[in-house]
């Protein structure tokens, strides 16, 4: 029994020691092998998954255009090629960035900052979508679609943005109700007022979440006074003041 106990005690010590060494080794090796592009640009996804995802997005966009304005086979082929070009150009930049960040020391805070400065524009572009107005896709589209097709497509996009903004107005009013009690009639009239306020589409700047507050900022005070009592207005005005700076971006 004593020999069994000593053997087990030795085993315990060995286990603890080995676990500590493993943890220390893993920490060093994992830090060395961390792929900054995968972590910061692809958000943990592999390059293959991101490429596939972008290709699917392009296919989906073509389908949408097909439904909105009826593309010819030639137009479809040109746009498909342009979308592939955008995806390839993006991954070319990814490859260049990999080279530029390959030998940077990941343990040094200044280097990490430097790497982030290089990487963040690519990350932002991927978040915003590759087929924006600066893309090859957009350029080919403007030279390929005829006027009627282009108008149909713009109309469809405008309606999509209006739906998004309406949804954000509803979300903002719902959040307001956690601060300001509203009766049903007040809620409906406030939504009508907010929907009627024009604001810029600021999706690219990542400010879309503030659309409801931007619209609230544009509602004339007199209109709000007709709708709400003094106490409700106190809270509404506090919220308007809180977001006054950021909603300037929507003008």
């Amino acid at each position: 029994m004593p020999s069994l106990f000593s053997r087990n005690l030795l085993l315990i010590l060995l286990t603890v020691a080995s676990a500590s060494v493993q943890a220390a080794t893993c920490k060093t090796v994992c830090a060395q092998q961390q792929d900054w592009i995968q972590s910061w640009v692809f958000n943990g996804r592999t390059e293959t998954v991101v490429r596939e995802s972008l290709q699917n997005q392009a296919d989906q966009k073509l389908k949408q255009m097909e439904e909105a304005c009826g593309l010819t086979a030639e137009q479809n082929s040109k746009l498909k090629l342009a979308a592939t070009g955008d995806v390839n150009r993006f991954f070319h930049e990814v490859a260049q960035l990999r080279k530029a960040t390959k030998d940077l020391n990941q343990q040094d805070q200044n280097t990490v900052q430097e790497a982030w400065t290089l990487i963040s524009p690519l990350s932002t572009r991927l978040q915003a979508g590759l087929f924006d107005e600066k893309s090859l896709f957009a350029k080919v589209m403007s030279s390929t679609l005829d006027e009627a097709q282009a108008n149909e497509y713009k109309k469809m996009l405008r309606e999509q943005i209006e739906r998004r903004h309406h949804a954000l107005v509803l979300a903002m009013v719902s959040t307001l109700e956690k601060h300001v009690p509203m009766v049903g009639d007040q809620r409906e009239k406030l939504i009508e007022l907010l929907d009627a306020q024009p604001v810029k589409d600021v999706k690219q700047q990542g400010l879309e979440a503030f659309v409801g507050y931007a619209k609230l900022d544009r509602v004339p005070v007199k209109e709000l006074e007709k709708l709400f009592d003094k106490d409700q207005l106190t809270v509404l005005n506090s919220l308007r003041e809180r977001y006054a700076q950021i909603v300037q971006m929507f003008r």
Partner: protein
Amino acid sequence: MQAIQKTASQSLLLIAVLTLSTLFEMRTVIAQDPAALEKPLQQEPAKGEPAKQEPANREQPPEQQEEVAMVGAQVFQLGNGEAIGVEVEAQAVEIFRDVTIVMDGVELGGDGAVQLATQVMLAPVAVDNALIRRVCKPNEDQLKQLSQFDAKWVAKEAKSVKANGNKNVVGGFLRVFAGGMPEQGNTNDRATKISALHRKEVAKILTAEQNAAFEKAVKERDEFRNRANAECVVAMLDERLFLSAEQRKQLTEKLMAWKDIANLEVHFYFQNQIYLPSLPSDISKVLNESQRAVFSNIQQVNFQGQMFGVDDAGILITN
């Protein structure tokens, strides 16, 4: 006999390994923060998650206490408007100082606790009180009775309501060996229960007709919130999947019936457009094959917390 000895020895080995590893972990925690034994184990924040607020020292010099009271009072004014007066606000700051606040398994003290108690637990009650005043037109006597549901009442209930806690195995194990705080209930769960209790108590004061009007207003507000969140999710999906009008309609209906829809903080996903919330699997039935392909590649993340207003409970990555 030999078999029994062997089993006993193996059990001893297992207990020893677990004890040693726990003590090893505990030593690390204590080395980093000597006050660790006084509070539940805090998990490391995930990437992108805002840092949790540290408990403030409850015995502060007078000038610091004043500052804390100011923070609380500002929050009250913004959060509740006429729902509670300035005197009640000042009173509540003192009352909530003694309430244990646990958000996402982390205990908060000082102004963090006051702020959370105010916004998460008191605000819904205060806003409902104000809704009753507008919808039910209570008489003087009813108003007097309704005034009991103030910060003091919420604080009392916060202490007595049994809330579901966040399970933390390592924290629990540590507590068994090292003592420390017992596991606390989740503040959001506590807030929901306090709200339900408030409605039950209010029903005793209002007439049947008044109560029906109040319940109707609350139901409409809840349905509106579900619709708002569902339409936001549909708008996010539409951006990526280019949905037809019929698909948008079907998805809105499905999402409105989803049990988690009311708790979504949809603004987060408009701000972080590579993510979608973790949606129920049956929504993919509404999508066509190519839409499903795009949908399956979108990262789904549960954001718990609020961008505009209340708490700040961080991000939980689910897949």
